[in-house]
């Protein structure tokens, strides 16, 4: 019998005024009872609209039906057959734009909580153990992957399952890409990311950290000297954009990447036990409206800032962040200054931030992206007293690989030109995907690109053999 409640089972969470002072996970996860009750809301539709909304086509009704029956390990196996990192996706996918948007139950009331169920089954098997995935016998072919974010990991995992010897080269000292340096502990616990990465390593994937492709070794050397038959470039979009307004180099102005890396990767919230410091003042302003901005704002609050603003030039409806993050940020006391754009950052005699001048905006005609373009309201400038400014207006692909790989075609903004279906680039044997190709996007799109490239690389190497 279906559960006809119009609402999702609510997610147990830490209370807002408790969690905004700690770095423990905000959402605590469903109990088995909640998960089974929620799963019973699924109507098991024949045409499976939800599956078409998922970039990696998780077989949603199938796994949800197993959850309803209490067969959690079997449910997890169904999810994992198409998604290598479900505990992560269940937590960070923008479900409201993907699977849950297509859900029939969402037409009257809330959709089935697909993301929460995905998280539940993934966590369940992580805790209770699971069968190791099947790995084909080694086929003697070597493939290199550049970058250990979601795109690189999913490509590496899929190739390893097919019997390839895969080495992932990672510039930083810890694998995971944005999952470890960007997304904070309270949203995606790092112990969990480590476990998900360990399952990929258990497939036989070797991860070599502290290796910068283009510096420590070039892409061509991987192909010509180190015996790799193909390379998948998944180097992400790690280059921080600045606003190019006066005062951006003052003390107390951070790129979101720096701010989040210090806190998440280097654990500055645990200074001086961890040696990396960070300075968060009394009043912080975060510029931008995406997931990165929400994460930075919520970190600033947790680091002790009394007042934290989100300054975003469009309106509430256009905020690109996941709905849940915006909701959580508001609950935690983050103040939203929407339709507002900074014009300059003002410093004191020592070169430290003391204020930021902003101007009010209004929405004009739609621009090329279809979103209404924000335009300045003349004369509406005013200043906010702030001592910390975090710029979260987007990241572009790092130019290093492009600069050191002759013949690799790139877009003017730095994205690598790659075929959408295969990841094939302008260079033979070189494939690319994830944020390095699309610019900053989502975990699941990056994973999807990694999977497609794995299939294409497999085909390329098999054909070459013949």
């Amino acid at each position, binding site marked *: 019998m279906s559960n006809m409640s119009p609402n999702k089972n609510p997610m147990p969470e830490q209370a807002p005024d408790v969690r905004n002072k700690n770095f423990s996970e905000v959402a605590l996860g469903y109990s088995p009872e909640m998960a089974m009750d929620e799963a019973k809301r699924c109507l098991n539709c024949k045409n499976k609209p939800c599956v078409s909304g998922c970039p990696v086509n998780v077989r949603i009704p199938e796994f949800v039906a197993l959850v309803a029956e209490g067969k959690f390990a079997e449910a997890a196996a169904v999810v994992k057959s198409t998604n290598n990192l479900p505990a992560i996706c269940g937590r960070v996918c923008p479900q409201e734009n993907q699977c849950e948007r297509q859900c029939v139950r969402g037409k009257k009331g809330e959709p089935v909580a697909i993301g929460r169920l995905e998280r539940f089954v993934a966590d369940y098997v992580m805790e209770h153990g699971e069968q190791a995935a099947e790995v084909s016998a080694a086929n003697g072919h070597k493939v290199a992957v550049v970058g250990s974010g979601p795109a690189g990991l999913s490509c590496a995992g899929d190739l390893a399952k097919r019997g390839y010897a895969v080495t992932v080269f990672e*510039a*930083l*000292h810890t694998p995971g890409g944005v999952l470890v*340096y960007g997304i904070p502990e309270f949203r995606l616990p790092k112990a969990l990311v480590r476990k998900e990465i360990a399952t990929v390593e258990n497939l036989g994937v070797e991860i070599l*950290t*502290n*290796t*910068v492709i283009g*510096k*420590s*070794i070039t892409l061509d050397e991987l192909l010509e000297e180190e015996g790799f038959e193909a390379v998948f470039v998944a180097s992400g979009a*790690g*280059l*921080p954009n*600045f606003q190019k307004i006066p005062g*951006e*180099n*003052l*003390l107390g102005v*951070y*790129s979101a*990447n*720096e701010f989040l*890396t*210090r806190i998440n990767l*280097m*654990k500055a919230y645990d*200074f*001086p*036990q*961890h*040696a*990396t*410091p960070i*300075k968060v003042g009394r009043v912080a302003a975060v510029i931008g409206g995406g997931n990165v901005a929400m994460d930075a704002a919520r970190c600033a609050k947790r680091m002790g800032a009394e007042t934290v603003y989100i300054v975003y030039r469009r309106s509430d409806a256009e905020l690109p962040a996941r709905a849940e993050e915006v909701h959580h940020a508001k609950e935690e006391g983050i103040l939203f200054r929407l339709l507002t754009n900074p014009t300059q950052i003002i410093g004191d005699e*020592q*070169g430290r931030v003391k204020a930021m001048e902003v101007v009010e905006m209004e929405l004009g005609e739609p621009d090329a992206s279809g979103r209404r373009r924000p335009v300045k309201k003349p004369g509406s400038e005013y200043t906010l007293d702030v001592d910390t400014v975090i710029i979260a207006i987007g990241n572009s692909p*790092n*130019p*290093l690989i492009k600069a050191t790989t002759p013949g690799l075609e790139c877009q003017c903004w730095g994205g690598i030109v790659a075929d959408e279906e295969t990841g094939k680039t302008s260079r033979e044997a070189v494939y690319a995907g994830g944020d390095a190709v699309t610019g900053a996007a989502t975990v699941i799109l990056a994973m999807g690109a990694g999977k497609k490239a794995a299939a294409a690389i497999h085909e390329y190497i098999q054909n070459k053999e013949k």
Partner: protein
Amino acid sequence: MFPILKKRVLNPTVTYMEILAPRVAKKAQPGQFIMLRIDENGERIPLTIAGYDREEGTVTIIFQKVGYTTYSLDGLEEGDSLLDFVGPLGRASDFDGMRKVAVVGGGLGVAIAYPQAKALHDLGAEVDFIVGFRNKDLIILEEEFSAACSDLTIMTDDGSNGRKGFVTTALQEKLEAGAEYDAVIAIGPLMMMKAVCELTREKKIPTIVSMNSVMVDGTGMCGCCRLTVGGETKFACVDGPDFDGHQVDFDEAMARSRMYFDEEQLSMEKHACQLGGKKQ
């Protein structure tokens, strides 16, 4: 893990180490740097590559004990290992067209200037190497230095070696005596590099400085190392560390270098009590 194969204490504040890191050694060029992390709780810090041996697979670092991480690093011995060691990072120095050069090193820049002087000397350039120390007891690597240049000048702040004054004093004397340099390379504290640039600006001598900004990743990902050069924002870790000194906004760079002064004090206190703890 990256083992420490050799350690030499050069003077009470400066230490020399050879680290086994074959991939880094294979690619290293003068002017480039590495980022290291001692252990799981450690900070990532940049250090200039002071030398390398491609056959042995070793990279030399020379560091001055200035803060928590460099003090901890100095506490390690041969046989210990570093958890992370990545490089070579940054652009290699460009020595094109330099036939007569003054290489000026002050403070902790002395050791870093050495590979530059040596590289130029090996390329056949005439190198005037000017280095400065606080007093004669702190003078290091004198033999290596002499072997890496045509003319070595060692200055001391207190004159205890007979040559009192700053490195800029020596450079000014050389310029006044008619030395004509294709370029001056200045490496050291920001104040010193700024002073050298002021000297050479009037004489229009191209001057290259090596910017030791605060860094986190060292690969262009965080922007922490940004500085203004010729009115534009640059990242020291990928666009540098060498820059045209006459274009660098030194005042801004000096302000930025003081960002974590208070935190560094805190870390040092922690270091002091850890050392205290060990003795008991």
